[in-house]
């Protein structure tokens, strides 16, 4: 009873809290990093160096009046933010944060597919938000979003096939263990796939330079134009949670998950003294930082250019990558 019910429930509770707290602090991190990139200080007023801004923001959003537009479809309008946040949180159940069984909730044999499929549910949140708002800019945004997310989902899924071929398993823990056996992070074996997943991940999380569905300069905020208060906050949480998911997936698939650098080199054994989860969070942080850095640097693509990149560049390259991986795998 303790092993099958209580411990998993405890782990879920801890993980959910950890994710939600880290998501709120992600907003602070993003504001700070972008501020530094722009030679500003960022939030400085709430707490030392603005650290408590991450708490002040949610409090403000919760206390704000929650407005539903008069002609909106109230049911769907409320459902949409929930639908976008819940899948982002569910995905964490199969992410192995460390080598020990303590650090993941479950390890299912279709873990990678599970992540892909559950994140694909998240698109409903955006589409419904745009439709339910009964407003033109959100509708345009949600049409953009549905096309964008489906296209990039194809590209990412295709790319992950080659990773699966290399690892020989779909289980997230299994993939890390395969890297341990190979003595090499898959980032070095599958550099093309890594880049593709990174680009596709940016597009799937609606991050700059692919933040078409929000594009505040074009669509005045896109699908969440009509949202305010807590429901708006849920969209925000979902976006950052998705960012963390992509960073975690990239870490597991390409950068050895919880493994230390060069897991096969004996001489670096002293690195094992650092707990596995620190390696994991360290790597994840690098990618989160990268996402924010990209947002601070690059202009935004246009919708048709985005689709062109997705269909004419990413998908063909992903297919070529599968073929090459397959051939190499057979020859070796």
């Amino acid at each position, binding site marked *: 009873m303790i092993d099958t019910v209580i411990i998993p429930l405890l782990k879920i509770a801890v993980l959910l809290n950890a994710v939600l707290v880290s998501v709120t602090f992600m907003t602070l991190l993003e504001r700070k990093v972008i501020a530094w990139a722009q030679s500003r200080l960022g939030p400085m007023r709430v707490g030392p160096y603005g650290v408590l801004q991450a708490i002040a923001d949610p409090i403000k959003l919760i206390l704000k009046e929650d407005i539903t537009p008069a002609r909106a479809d109230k049911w769907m309008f409320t459902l949409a933010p929930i639908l976008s946040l819940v899948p982002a949180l569910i995905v964490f159940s199969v992410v192995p944060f460390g080598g020990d069984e303590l650090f993941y909730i479950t390890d299912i*044999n279709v873990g990678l597919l599970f992540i892909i*499929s559950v994140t*694909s549910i998240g*698109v409903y949140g955006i589409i*419904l938000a745009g439709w339910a708002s009964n407003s033109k800019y959100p509708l345009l945004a949600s049409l953009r979003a549905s096309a964008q997310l489906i296209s990039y989902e194809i590209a990412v899924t295709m790319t992950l096939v080659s990773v699966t071929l290399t690892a020989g398993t779909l289980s997230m823990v299994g993939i890390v263990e395969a890297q341990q056996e190979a003595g090499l992070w898959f980032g070095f074996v599958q550099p093309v796939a890594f880049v593709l997943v990174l680009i596709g991940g940016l597009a799937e999380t609606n991050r700059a330079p692919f933040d078409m569905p929000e594009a505040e300069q074009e669509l005045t905020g896109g699908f969440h134009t009509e949202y305010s208060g807590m429901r708006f906050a849920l969209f925000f949480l979902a976006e950052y949670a998705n960012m963390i998911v992509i960073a975690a997936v990239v870490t597991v698939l390409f950068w050895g998950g919880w493994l230390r650098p060069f897991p096969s080199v004996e001489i670096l054994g002293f690195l094992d003294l650092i707990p596995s989860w620190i390696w994991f969070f360290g790597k994840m942080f690098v990618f989160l930082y990268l996402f924010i850095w990209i947002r601070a640097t690059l202009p935004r693509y246009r919708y048709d250019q985005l689709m062109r990149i997705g269909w004419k560049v990413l998908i063909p390259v992903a297919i070529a990558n599968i073929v090459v991986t397959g051939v190499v795998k057979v020859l070796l």
Partner: protein
Amino acid sequence: MGETIAFYVLSFLILSLAIMVVTARNTVHSVIFLVMSFLCVAVLYVVLRAEFLAVIQVLVYAGGIVVLYLFVVMLVNLSGEPEAHEDPRRLGLTGLALAGAVLLELAGIVVYSYSREPSAPVAGAAASPVQGNVEQIGWLLYTDYLIPFEVASVLLLVAMVGAIVLARREL
């Protein structure tokens, strides 16, 4: 016991959501009920130890096909009720009666077939050299069912071409 609870809860959800799909006035609501129904079916697959299919169900149905439906429903932004125009020759009640007949027939088949001895497992016939749900499906797809598999891929290709042709402006 776990399976019993899961089965009844899921069956209730699947059927009630399915009824809402065919009765909802608003097409978008219909689509959302459809997604939820499919997600429940996916959970049912997990109960039935078909993890791969569960994931595929979510990925293809919920994440792909139904998004297409939603997309089309939003494009076909209907101002008037589609049900407003009624063909005088339409026989709605007969349709309902026919559906009832289908249910009766199916129930008859179920009762008839399960009143006899249940058939024994035929695992021996298709013993596969691999373990695990995904591996076994993969094995079967690429050995015994290779040709249907390829035909299915051609079918998908044809469907893709067809969809593009149909969606083009000049038709």
